[in-house]
C-alpha cells in the first residue's frame, strides 16, 4: 500500500459507506417500506472506490442498474441518494429516477442505467466531448459480465477505438449476469478483457476484491488514457454478496457459496488486513470509520423517512426544457 494515511482513510470510509448504505437498504426493503427494484452493490465496493478515488468532478462515469456504489464513490450525496430511493421530492433526482436512475452531473456522474449495456455508448460520447476539449479528462463506463454480452458494448468499444476517445471500459466480473453464471453466458473466452483486447484496446486485469489492486491498476490505466493513447479496458474479478435484485431467492447459488465469499473475498476485510498488517491504520481507527459510515447512513434513512413527498402536479415537470 503506497497511499497516504489520509487517502487510505478516505477510501475505507467510502467503501464502508457503500457497504452500510446497501446493508441498510437490504433490511429496509425486506420490510416493504420502500418500493421498486433495487440491485445492491455489496461485495464490489473496492472496484467503485478504487476507480473513483482517481477522479475529479470533470472526469465522468456512466453506471449501471447496480449503481449505488458508483454514485457514492463518485461523490453523490448520501442523504440525497437515500431520499431518491425513498422517492422523496428532495431526492437527488426529485424522486423521478429512483434506484436505477440516480445521476448527478455536477459530480460527473452521468447516470445509473436501467438498461444493461446502454451506458457504454453514452460514455463514448462523453469521452469524445472530452477529447474535443483536450483537457486530459476521461469517462469511465462500468459494465458487468452481463453487459459485456450486449451488442451496444461491442459497438461502443469499437467506436471508442476508432475515435480514440479517452474512454475506459471497467468490467466488473461478479460471475453472475442476473441469475446466470459467467461460465455459461460469456462464450468460449471465459474472459472479458480479451474481448476488449480484440477490439484493439490495451487491457488490464485486477482483483476487484482488493482495493490496492484496483487502485494501483487504475493508476496505470488512467496514466495511459490521460496521455492521449485512446481508450482502454480493465476487468476486475469481484463478488456479488446479494441477489440480482432484492427479493431474489438466490437458489442458483452453491451450498455455502455466499458464506465462503463473505469470508474470503470481502474487500473490507482484505483492506483491513492489509492496512493493519502494514501498520498504516489500526483496528480501532478502522472500527471508528466503519461506525461513522453506519451512523451517516442511519441519519440518511431517518432524513428520508421525514422528507417531503412529490406533489402529483409535478408528474409532467422537466420532460422538456422548453414547452
Amino acid at each position, binding site marked *: 500500500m503506497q497511499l497516504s494515511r489520509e487517502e487510505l482513510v478516505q477510501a475505507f470510509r467510502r467503501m464502508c459507506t457503500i457497504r452500510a448504505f446497501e446493508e441498510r437498504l437490504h433490511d429496509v426493503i425486506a420490510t416493504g417500506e420502500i418500493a421498486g427494484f433495487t440491485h445492491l452493490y455489496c461485495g464490489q465496493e473496492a472496484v467503485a472506490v478504487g476507480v473513483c478515488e482517481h477522479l475529479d468532478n470533470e472526469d*465522468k462515469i*456512466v453506471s449501471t442498474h447496480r449503481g449505488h456504489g458508483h454514485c457514492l464513490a463518485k461523490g453523490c450525496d448520501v442523504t440525497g441518494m437515500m431520499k431518491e430511493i425513498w422517492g422523496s421530492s428532495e*431526492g*437527488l*433526482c*426529485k*424522486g*423521478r*429516477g429512483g434506484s436505477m*436512475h440516480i*445521476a*448527478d*452531473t*455536477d459530480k460527473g456522474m*452521468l*447516470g445509473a*442505467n*436501467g*438498461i444493461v449495456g*446502454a451506458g*457504454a*455508448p*453514452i*460514455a*463514448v*460520447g*462523453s*469521452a*469524445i*466531448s*472530452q*477529447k*474535443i476539449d483536450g483537457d486530459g479528462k476521461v*469517462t469511465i463506463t462500468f459494465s458487468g459480465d452481463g453487459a459485456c454480452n450486449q*451488442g*451496444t458494448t461491442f*459497438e*461502443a468499444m*469499437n*467506436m471508442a477505438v*476508432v*475515435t480514440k476517445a479517452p474512454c475506459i471500459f471497467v468490467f466488473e466480473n461478479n460471475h453472475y449476469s442476473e441469475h446466470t453464471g459467467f461460465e455459461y453466458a460469456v462464450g468460449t473466452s471465459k474472459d472479458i478483457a480479451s474481448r476488449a483486447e480484440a477490439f484493439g484496446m490495451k487491457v488490464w486485469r485486477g482483483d476487484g476484491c482488493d482495493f490496492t489492486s484496483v487502485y494501483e491498476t487504475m493508476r496505470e490505466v488512467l496514466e495511459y488514457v490521460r496521455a492521449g493513447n485512446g481508450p482502454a479496458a480493465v476487468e476486475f474479478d469481484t463478488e456479488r454478496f446479494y441477489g440480482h435484485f432484492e427479493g431474489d431467492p438466490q437458489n442458483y447459488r452453491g451450498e455455502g457459496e455466499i458464506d465462503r465469499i463473505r469470508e474470503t473475498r470481502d474487500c473490507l476485510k482484505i483492506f483491513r488486513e492489509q492496512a493493519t498488517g502494514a501498520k498504516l491504520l489500526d483496528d480501532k481507527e478502522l472500527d471508528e470509520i466503519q461506525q461513522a459510515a453506519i451512523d451517516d447512513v442511519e441519519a440518511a434513512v431517518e432524513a428520508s423517512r421525514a422528507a417531503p413527498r412529490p406533489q402529483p402536479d409535478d408528474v409532467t*415537470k*422537466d*420532460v*422538456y*426544457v*422548453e*414547452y
Partner: protein
Amino acid sequence: MAKMMYRDAVVSTLHEEMERDESIVVLGEDVVGGMGTEGGPEAIGGIWSTSTGLYDKFGADRVIDTPISESAIMGAAGGLALTGKRPVAELMFADFIGVSLDQIWNQIAKFRYMFGGKTRCPAVLRMAYGAGFNAAAQHSQSVHHILTGMPGLKVVMPSTPEDVRGLLRTALRSDDPVIFLEHKALYGVEGEVPDGDYTIPFAHARQVRSGEDVTIIATGLMVGLAEAAADTLAEDGIGCDVIDLRTTSPMDEEAILDSVEVTGRLVIVDEAPPRCNLATDISAIVAQKAFASLKAPIEMVTAPHSPIPFALELERAYLPSADDVEAAVRKTLSYR
C-alpha cells in the same frame, strides 16, 4: 430571397450554425465518407449530400465519421449532449431507429426527467425517411408516429427548403432532444428561401392554402399532395384549408381546432400505416375537443397496414396520392 434545394437547405444551415456555435458536433455514417480509403476523406459528404464540406471546414473533431453502429451513434450523441456539446447525429435511414431505439427512447428522451430536471440533452437526431424510391420495406418508412408518442422528444417534419432552414435553426438552438425528419423525396425539391437568420418556432403550423369548406392536415411529403388536391378542388369552387403541421411534437393543436371550427370537415393525410398514427391521434383530439364543429366523419388518407413493397406498381399503391386526398375531400363533402 434565393432559390435552394431542400438538401442544400440542410447543409447550408449546418455550415452556418456550426460557425455560430462551436459546441455543435456532427456525427454519423459516411457524413465524411471515404475515411480509410485511397480516395481520401470527403469522398461522400453524407449519402444525401447533407454534410458536404463540413469536414473540410470544421475538421475531424467536430465532424465525426462513425462505423456502422447506430446504437453507438445515438448513444454517443446522448453522451455528447450531456457534457455540453450539441451533437447532430445522422441516422442514414429513419428505419434504423430499429437498431438504436433504446438510446433514443430510453436514454436521450428521458435523461432530463429521470435526472430530476438537472440536465439538458440538446441532441438533434437527423434522419431521412419516407417512401417513393423503391427502397422497399426497411429503407422507406415513416416513423414520426412512433417517435411522436415518446415523451421527451420533439419531432420535426419540414416540407419545404424554407422550413428546413427555419426549423433546423430552432432545433440547433433548442435545449431539448429533437428528431429532425427529412423526406428523401424532398431532398431534390427547390424552393424560395428568405434571407437572414430567421427561425421558425415549434408547434407553429403553416397555412398552405386557405379555404372554408374542408380542412386538410398534412406533414412532410404529404403536404404537396394536399396542395395539389386543393388546387384541383379549387377549380370546382371547393375551398380547402391546408395546414402543414411542421412539427408533430409539440403540435399546433390550436391551428387544427380553429380550422375545423370553420370548415366542420377534416381530412388528415399521413404517410404512416393506419393504426396508431398521426391521423388517428389528430382524429381523437378533434373528436374530443371540436366534436360539435364536425359536420361529417373525419377522413384519413394513410398508407395501408402493410410493410412497404419494392415493385414500382406496389409502392405506388402503397403511398397516398393527390387523387386519394381529393377523393377523401369529396367524400366528406358528400356526407349528408
